[in-house]
């Protein structure tokens, strides 16, 4: 007996896993993954193949895997929903001739093996009949002597819709019911920042990430805005991607110091107001209100940050460390030892950041 391990990688790339020329044993693992999906969208075997299949549950909810005869998946799913109080005992699998083989319910993190032979040619299904899952979570087993007749993945009626998306054919749809206008503001999971971050697209090609947790600008980039496709998919496990080249990345931590230059103040985020679609952030620094509005440089890569401060009795410092990708040009005061010291009584100032 010879085992052929189906290559999951191959399946992921083109959605097609084909066993070798003649009918023999095939061993493969199908993972139940997040978003009501089997990671293998379909596979192909020759008639008479014994299939040793492991269902490995990588998801955070329970699943089973039920192999059904051609054209019977929906019937099996609907029958499973009508099992009533027998459902749990039967692992949500109806006892009908439509079912070729099935695993029990597999808890998250667990795996189960089944073994079965498919003699007749046809398109069989494997489906999770756990209540509510069967309408979206399934794949196809092509039992055929002519693998070349199998249709392209995105045109395959036997493959679940949420698996066709993965082939890269679902990206033509608009993001919103309107054309995105700039400046654009999204609260989302941004990489290399705190989890309460805000992505702001100043123009389609210039953007920054502002961290509402630590009340500060984290990084800025040009060349594009963000891609939220992955983050929007399913339950939002993957972060949003930055599109473009980051030219500034904050190194100095929260930049404003009150009284002394070396003591980090307490900060508290208070929200933002949109002014001509530009967000003006509001936050408290040791109880003093600060407003910050960020605009793009008129020419070249960089930002103009306008600050408005509440009444402060002592001196105010602003950290301008070198090595974070930009040159600083304050509207008042001078840069010394990595700080701008603002003249006492300053209530508003701008800080221009020019990419180096």
């Amino acid at each position, binding site marked *: 007996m010879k085992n052929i391990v189906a290559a999951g990688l191959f399946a992921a790339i083109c959605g097609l896993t084909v066993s070798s020329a003649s009918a023999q044993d095939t061993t493969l693992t199908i993972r139940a993954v997040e978003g009501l999906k089997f990671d293998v969208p379909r596979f192909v075997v020759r008639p008479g193949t014994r299939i040793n299949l492991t269902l490995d549950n990588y998801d955070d909810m329970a699943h089973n895997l039920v192999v059904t005869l051609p054209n019977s998946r929906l019937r099996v799913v609907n029958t499973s929903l009508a099992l009533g109080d027998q459902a749990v005992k039967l692992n949500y699998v109806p006892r009908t001739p439509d079912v070729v083989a099935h695993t029990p319910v597999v808890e998250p993190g667990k795996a189960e093996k089944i073994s079965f032979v498919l003699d007749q040619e046809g398109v069989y299904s494997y489906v999770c009949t756990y209540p509510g899952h069967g309408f979206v979570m399934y794949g196809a087993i092509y039992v055929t002597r002519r693998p070349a007749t199998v249709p392209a993945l995105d045109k395959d009626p036997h493959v679940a819709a949420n698996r066709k998306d993965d082939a890269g054919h679902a990206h033509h749809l*608009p993001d919103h019911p309107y054309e995105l206008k700039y400046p654009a503001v999204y609260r989302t999971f941004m990489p290399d920042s705190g989890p309460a971050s805000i992505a702001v697209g100043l123009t389609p090609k210039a953007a920054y990430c502002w961290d509402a947790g630590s009340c500060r600008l984290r990084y800025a980039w040009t060349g594009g805005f963000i891609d939220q496709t992955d983050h929007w998919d399913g339950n939002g496990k993957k*972060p949003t991607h930055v599109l473009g080249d980051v030219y500034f990345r904050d190194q100095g931590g929260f930049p404003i110091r009150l009284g002394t230059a070396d003591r980090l103040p307490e900060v508290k985020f208070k929200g933002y107001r949109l002014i001509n679609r530009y967000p003006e952030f509001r936050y408290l620094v040791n109880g003093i209100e600060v407003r910050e509005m960020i605009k793009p440089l008129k020419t070249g890569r960089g930002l103009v940050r306008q600050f408005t401060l509440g009444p402060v009795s002592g001196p105010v410092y602003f950290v301008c460390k070198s090595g974070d990708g930009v040159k600083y040009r304050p509207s008042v005061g001078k840069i010394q030892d990595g700080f701008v010291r603002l003249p006492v009584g300053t209530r508003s100032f701008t800080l221009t950041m020019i990419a180096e």
Partner: protein
Amino acid sequence: MRNKIKSASRVKTFLSAFVALSLLNLNGWSKPLFPADTITDYYEVETIQMPKGLTAETDGLAVMPDGRIVAGFHRGEIMIYTPKTKTWKLFAEGIHDPLGIMAVSNSEILVMQRPELTRVKDTNGDGVADLYETVTDEFGLSGNYHEFAFGPVKDKQGNIFISLNTASNGAGIFPEVRGKLDTLGRPGRMYSAVPYRGWVMKLTPDGKLHPYASGFRSPNSLGFDANGNLFAADNQGDWLGTSKLYHVQEGKHYGHPASLLWKEGFPRITPRKLPVKMLDSLRTVESVAFPHSRIANSPTQPVLDNTGGKFGPFAGKMLIGEMDHPYLIRLMLETVDGQIQGACAPFLAGAGLRRGNNRLAFGPDGSLWLGQTDHGWAGARGMQRVRWKGKTPLELADMKLTPTGFVLTFTQPLDAATAQQLTNYQFQRYYYEYHEAYGSKQFDKQPVAVTKAELSPDGKTVTLKLGELKAGYIYELEMGKLRSTTQQNLMGRLVCYTLNRLQRNTQANP
């Protein structure tokens, strides 16, 4: 393809003939109904046309004072629907999963998004929000995808309640978190590594956020009953043998141990490592257990029918949504021995609802607005609106425990012959175990004999005597083909009563 279209239109013709026929019979009320009445004779479901290009994962939904509907969607849009004109307008953008909305006025809402509770307001009268003000963000955020936030709901004193989902071991946390990171909170399937994950929080009118009650896993979502009692739904999983509805009271713990880490004075230990017996003794049990898959897989928002009868015969009681079944669930609660407990029953099955009923809100006309989502799990997308058509269906209106059994009250007088047949009341009882593993099987499942069924003189109440009543069990009742005196069918035949406590004067074996 051709054939398909043909047969589809044939089905349609048949259906409209059927509807016409049953309408005729509804007019001739005194005559027996033929063909039999269905739920669509009493309730109609309208599917709302969603804006083109919208991914209509409806996260949050509320009715504004002027009757417009404000809805929040997964991609951050907050949109307002005007029912009269059936038009949509964008109100706000860029919200991170707006899973809860409360209308403050016709130009201002509170939105519960992942990182904070936000006041979103149109201050210049152009119909579009320009102010996004942080109301509270005094809770931790680890960057784990499962840290959803739910609510807000407001009590009569002006306190606002929100609830915070635990994190899932389906993913880790960000290298940077907001709030204090405690690595003791990392182990476990659903975990709480930053403050107040797994808690219901109370925001007092002075703007301070207080931890209120702990022990929640995935508390989607919150609601009040007619007496101002706060309830939270929770989902089957680790430590939850089946999905539940809790009566949330200050200082209490409801069973999912992860959140205990953030309880003041709690020992420095990963709570799930404590003996199950000890954890069991710390918890307050649910008011309602929803038998898994039989009633609900994932219950959602509890909402009070405060329509005063505009939505049919269930005014004053609560409904709750459900993600995986194309129906809602009616709740019939009572106080027994000082604790709220009661029954749940599928409602509007077959009425044309989709799955994924995540948010529910009553409009001023008494119609029920439903926001539907899937969010990577089972469900559906979009919005539907349910209207009562004015005739009273035959339904179980209430189920109450007695010392010897249950009293069932129906919306219509019952046909005496069928109502007194004992075989029309099939009881079983079972319980779900409190343990760490995901879900639970049904333990000690036994049929329970009905020894007597007594019909009241007005025909609306059946008093059932049971062979045995035992605390700590779910009593599942499947009713037979009961009919009203006017030959209406009983719409919902399944009901499950969570019997935590017996009445004080109950004998051990009545």
